[in-house]
């Protein structure tokens, strides 16, 4: 188990290094720079600006000094927002995206697990069909269609929520529901499949024969095995929720990381783009690793190896 974690950790660090390097050089080789604004900046000022940010040094020097600062957790100054560091900007935007992600994950798990378990326990009844219909809707109607429609129905017409913004607790409801629904669908499918497989096992029949109550059979005996497929899906799901927030943040005008990333790319704000990529990549890899470990821990076949 420890060896497994260590090798995965090393692999993640290597991948992270590749991401940082690739993004760093990609940014330097694209046309345009952070200071090529609409109105031409005088040459001397441009030169001073570049000297200030170290852009006049040879590329390899810039690269190594960036890496050196990065080891100390310093992501450098933002090129577009003068006097602000990338660390400050990320520290301001990340909590917003994380909160949205957590609420959405809660919605996805609550809805997906409930629907999936009902579908498995009431197989081939109307409840099962209803659950798979909801699943198909979540799978096929993209969030950028459901999102605006929800705004139209519940914010503009019904007036229950604000159409956009991130100020009041009620502002969290619509974005989290819309983002969570998309991931409730695959979770409910996986739960149904996993539960059905477990419920057909002999040991469940034994438990039933010994007179265990239905609740006990479901929660004590089946859930752990039945949820294995869901656990392995959680890593990609959380990754999807984090990047899915790009669209949700645009629709609901939420000042989160996703919107900031698109803006910073348009601004050619090298350090901010790079910082955001690093942050996202670290998050995704950490989450994938956590999902793998959780899966290994839940599955004795892997755990005991």
């Amino acid at each position, binding site marked *: 188990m420890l060896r497994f974690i260590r090798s995965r950790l090393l692999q993640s660090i*290597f991948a992270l290094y590749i991401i940082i390097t690739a993004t760093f050089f990609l940014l330097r080789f694209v046309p345009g720079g952070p200071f090529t604004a609409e109105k031409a900046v005088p040459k001397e000022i441009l030169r001073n600006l570049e000297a200030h940010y170290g852009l006049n040094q040879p590329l390899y020097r810039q690269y190594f000094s960036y890496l050196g600062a990065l080891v100390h957790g310093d992501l450098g100054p933002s090129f577009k927002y003068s006097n602000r560091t990338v660390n400050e900007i990320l520290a301001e935007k990340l909590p917003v995206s994380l909160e949205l992600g957590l609420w959405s994950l809660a919605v996805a798990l609550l809805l997906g697990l409930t629907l999936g378990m009902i579908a498995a326990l009431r197989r081939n009844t109307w409840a099962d069909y209803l659950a798979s219909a909801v699943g198909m809707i979540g799978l096929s109607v993209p969030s950028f269609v459901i999102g605006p*429609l929800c705004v139209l129905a519940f914010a503009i017409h019904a007036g229950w929520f604000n159409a956009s913004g991130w100020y009041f607790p009620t502002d969290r409801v619509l974005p989290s529901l819309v983002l969570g629904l998309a991931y409730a669908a695959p979770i409910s499918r996986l739960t149904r499949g996993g539960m059905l497989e477990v419920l057909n096992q002999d040991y469940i029949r034994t438990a039933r024969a010994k007179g265990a109550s239905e609740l006990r059979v479901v929660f004590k005996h089946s859930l752990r095995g039945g949820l294995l497929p869901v656990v392995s899906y959680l890593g990609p799901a959380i*990754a999807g929720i984090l990047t899915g927030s790009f669209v949700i943040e645009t629709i609901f005008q939420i000042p989160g990381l996703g919107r900031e990333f698109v803006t910073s790319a348009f601004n050619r704000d090298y350090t901010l783009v790079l910082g955001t990529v690093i942050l996202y*990549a670290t998050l995704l890899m950490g989450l994938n690793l956590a999902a793998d470990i959780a899966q290994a821990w839940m599955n004795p076949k892997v755990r005991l190896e």
Partner: protein
Amino acid sequence: MPSATPVTAEPVEPGRSPWRDAGLRLRKNRLAVFGGGVLLLVALACVAGPWLSPYSYEDIALDHTFSAPCARNWLGTDQLGHDLLVRIFYGGRISLAVGLSATVVALTIGIVYGAVAGFVGGVLDAAMMRIVDILYALPFTLFVILLMVFFGRNIILLFVAIGAVEWLTMARIVRGQVMAVKRMEFVEAARALGFGRRRILFRHILPNILGPVIVYATLTVPSVMLIEAFLSFLGLGVQPPMSSWGVLIKDGAEKMEEFPWLLLFPGAVFSLTLFSLNFLGDGLRDALDVRSSKD
């Protein structure tokens, strides 16, 4: 004297190929047939619709802007009086074309990569699959966004960028299948006959793993179309004057408060297409028995 009854040959039951079996199973699945039908209808409408409509893509009618659905424009018009129905047809052409071409890109890379890794095996396989593992962990959405922002948002780049994201899963599936098939006896027979490795791989192994490939390709098309629409919604995908369903949905969402049909109709057509593709993919999976149909 009883004459010896002539030995009549037993009527030979005509053999049915596995493909025909799968076809029959697919036809019994009503949802899949429905999905296939709708898909065909949408594709036909997008190809033929613009020829049949009295309006062209650029026709503007400044006296008839933001019209609700009416007899003149069945699905209404937008801010310049463009007929929405014709716009949906044209947008559909692009969306479907992106979906198909990016899937072909993903399919080609994935099959070749996965087949080589699975067939050769050993160190090469381990190295190639480790690369796939690493690429899997990359935040690809971010890279696609960066590429689209920096390199002028052209449609060819869109195909390549999306195809480059989607080939990973294909490679994994093909590799697993090739590894399973290459140990079978008919492959050994082919080898005993002295066929070369390339011939064995492409003529004998690959045709036998077509089932999973077809199923996965069908399910890749909707996910590719989703990425395209996602990018277009952020303003990074297909650029005007070209249009796609994603672009129409984006425009519609901006004006939905007063003119909800501009969002409703493109959104409905897009969702219906994704629905159909997913149903068809599920049906194919059951018909070709790709995963044991336990669930």
